[in-house]
């Protein structure tokens, strides 16, 4: 089965110590995927309230559907400019 690629940025990549994680999963939701990610990288858990997520390059909420082959991004508060 295709995996779900999770990309981590900024402070989230820093905390997790990696910029990319592959998770095996059936079709699921962002919230469920987060649980798997937080199991693998518990150091991310304290950041949860500040994080946003994207599925395939677009912001998405916790109940958004995520399918094998999708790219999910973990987005700390943006600070461009």
């Amino acid at each position, binding site marked *: 089965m295709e995996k779900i690629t999770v990309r981590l940025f900024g402070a989230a990549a820093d905390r997790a110590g990696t910029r990319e994680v592959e998770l095996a999963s059936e079709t699921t939701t962002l919230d469920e995927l987060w649980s798997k990610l937080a199991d693998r990288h518990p150091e991310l858990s304290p950041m949860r309230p500040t994080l946003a997520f*994207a599925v395939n390059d677009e912001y998405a909420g916790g109940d958004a559907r995520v399918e094998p082959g999708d790219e999910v991004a973990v987005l700390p508060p*943006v*600070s*461009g400019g």
Partner: protein
Amino acid sequence: MFAIVEEPIDVGALVSGAYRPDCGAVATFVGTTRVDESGEARVEHLEYEAYRPMADKKLAEIGAGIRNRWDVRYVAIVHRVGRVDPGEPSVAIVVAAPRRGPAFEASRHAIERIKEIVPIWKREVWSDGYIWVGSQVGTRGAIRTT
């Protein structure tokens, strides 16, 4: 024109590229690296990273939103990634409009929206450690605890 670049931003070329005979106003905003100080520590440089291509897409969305809302004939937004030294531009926004009101409003709007929705992150590298701006995650002891 919307771009994320690794090299220094040539703001002069961006501004003169915006001049048009149907416009009377060109408003430009440039964000530059400011050296903040705290006690004996100071910012030495910034490091930006972007989530591409989402960041490119969000810059273009901001541009489209501006052209929807104001009578603006040209919008360019260029954001730099990687290391940006003190006094150097990290972002440049150039808006040309027939009249100055919309040009000012649109350029202000663009920088506010960039700071809200474009997936770009700034790490301040201080003389005593670094800090991810907005997340307060880093190696600077004093700030990590706030």
